[in-house]
């Protein structure tokens, strides 16, 4: 593999805006609704292209989900959007009884996941949405890492029958893929071969894992890197094969270390192939205001910190 270069692409929320416009042309049943954040979530692009199928309903997340329930039960394909923390936290119970329980075809696509939201501060930064989405039975849970994966996976989500949660980010994302890459819901992507440790990332942390692998190479550690863009259903086959090869993992996510990808991966591993696992995420805390990069540095969501965790887990394994 050629040396890793950090080339910035668009934010995954921008890819969502583009995907929606394409979906609007492809499927007349797609209806998009937002709760007064359409400029930020990028649903406004759809609103401009298809004003008759777009409703910015006002600041009411509970009603947003309820409306989607009604629409989906009559055969529409509603996409509903807001910031991750508002839609998932305020709308959770409506998603539970109104979408997950009746198994309705609602697509929940949020923006402003994680702490890379930046200066707006902790109340706007979602650090628990993976956990909430994962505990909705029947939901598919997707966290794209860059603009290409976001656009492809969101378009697949529209064709997927059943409820889907997709978290997008506010910040521009380093490119992990090019536009020719093929993605499949539920199928993780092995980005780099390695025999000592597997770095499992999702969202913006995928690129950090790639960079960490470069840092580890200098330390003589051969790291494999995997993008788990679909947290549920987990690509168990891929994780199992990594466990058999490396037997040591670092799971990195822009989320609390409770209830997210780390929990999903280690629960699977403890059942099928007990392995050493380290977690890079937010440790039982909210973040604060600051630039996205300052926050990622302060809270350890960086390649350097992933590399340190990898060294710890490799030494545990060798002990």
């Amino acid at each position: 593999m050629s040396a890793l270069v950090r080339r910035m692409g668009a934010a995954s929320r921008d890819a969502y805006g583009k995907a929606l416009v394409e979906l609007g042309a492809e499927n007349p049943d797609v209806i998009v609704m937002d709760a007064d954040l359409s400029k930020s979530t990028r649903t406004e692009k759809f609103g401009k292209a298809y004003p008759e199928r777009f409703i910015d309903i006002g600041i009411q997340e509970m009603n947003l989900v309820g409306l989607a329930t009604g629409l989906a039960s009559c055969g529409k394909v509603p996409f509903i959007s807001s910031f991750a923390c508002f839609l998932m936290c305020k709308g959770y119970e409506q998603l539970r009884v109104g979408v997950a329980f009746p198994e309705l075809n609602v697509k929940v696509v949020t923006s402003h996941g994680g702490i890379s939201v930046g200066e707006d501060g902790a109340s706007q930064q979602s650090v628990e949405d993976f956990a909430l989405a994962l505990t909705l039975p029947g939901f598919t849970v997707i966290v794209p890492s860059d603009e290409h994966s976001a656009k492809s996976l969101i378009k697949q989500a529209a064709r997927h029958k059943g409820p889907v949660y997709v978290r997008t980010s506010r910040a521009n994302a380093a490119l992990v893929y090019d536009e020719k890459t093929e993605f499949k819901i539920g199928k993780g992507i092995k980005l780099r071969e390695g025999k000592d440790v597997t770095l499992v990332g999702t969202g913006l942390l995928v690129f950090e894992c790639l960079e960490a692998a470069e840092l580890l190479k200098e330390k003589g550690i051969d790291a494999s890197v995997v993008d788990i863009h679909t947290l549920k259903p987990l690509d168990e086959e891929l994780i199992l094969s990594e466990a058999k090869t490396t037997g040591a993992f670092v799971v990195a996510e822009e989320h609390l270390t409770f209830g997210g990808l780390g929990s999903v991966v280690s629960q699977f591993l403890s059942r099928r192939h007990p392995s050493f696992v380290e977690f890079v995420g937010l440790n039982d805390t909210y973040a604060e205001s600051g630039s996205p990069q300052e926050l990622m540095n302060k809270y350890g969501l960086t390649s350097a910190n992933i590399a340190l965790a990898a060294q710890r887990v490799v030494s545990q394994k060798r002990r």
Partner: protein
Amino acid sequence: MTQESQKKSAPADFDRLSRIALDIRRDVIKMLGLAGSGHPGGSLSATDILTALYFQVMRHDPKNPKWADRDRLVFSKGHGCPALYSALARAGYFSVESLLTLRKLESPLQGHPDVRRLAGIDASTGSLGQGLSIAVGMGLAARFDRKDYFSWALISDGELNEGQIWEAAAFASFHKMTNVPTILDYNKYQLGGSCKEMLDMEPVVDKWKAFGWETREINGHDLREIHDALLWAKSSKSAPRIIIAHTVKGKGVSFMEGNNHFHGVANTKDETVRALKELGESDAEIARITGMMK
């Protein structure tokens, strides 16, 4: 067209409707007595409204429960579902005898309505405050598809405590949703006590008016009044309409009327016998039902 959808356009036969309402009340008592748990009070207060909806006003076809052009009913006060289940059974969606499986393991008649399990249910409910939003969403779908069905919402007074009701109320009037006729089963009690003592939402009519709805107050146990009001509710040209139906919790059984013990406590064997006798059930049927009770 099946029997039920033909009857909808026939002139209302109020003797027939009151016989059906009586059957539903008997069913509710039998179902809850056998289940040993559930909510008699709010089932009996909604019985006459449900009767007028399913046996006179709503466009629906029990032989084709997923008919795309049917009227929907979002029964937002899900705990009162025994009355809804009985109305559906007596309309022909499933057998009346299956009502007796209420709340039993594997029964399609869940403790609160489950759209996946039971034909005729249009929305899973049971978490108060959500139903009006769902009905409005169905109304939006009708608007997008240029269909003329109505999505009815039946809500409770206790639900008015919930903020989501008012989110949906504001949205519906702003978007001039005239296809979401709504009925408030105003029986004046919620679990913890009277609405006045818990969280008084009066003036209820003024609140709905302030949110842009047209209102009409009726006696929710007078089938003629209910029938006329339902026709009024679905004939708006501009604003959404709500019927404030003044009802009596436990209506039809003397010792349950206005007795909030029966909000969420099922009738005992002795109470089942007394209630069914009051409702004119035959001795043989009472013996059959109580014979099945522990």
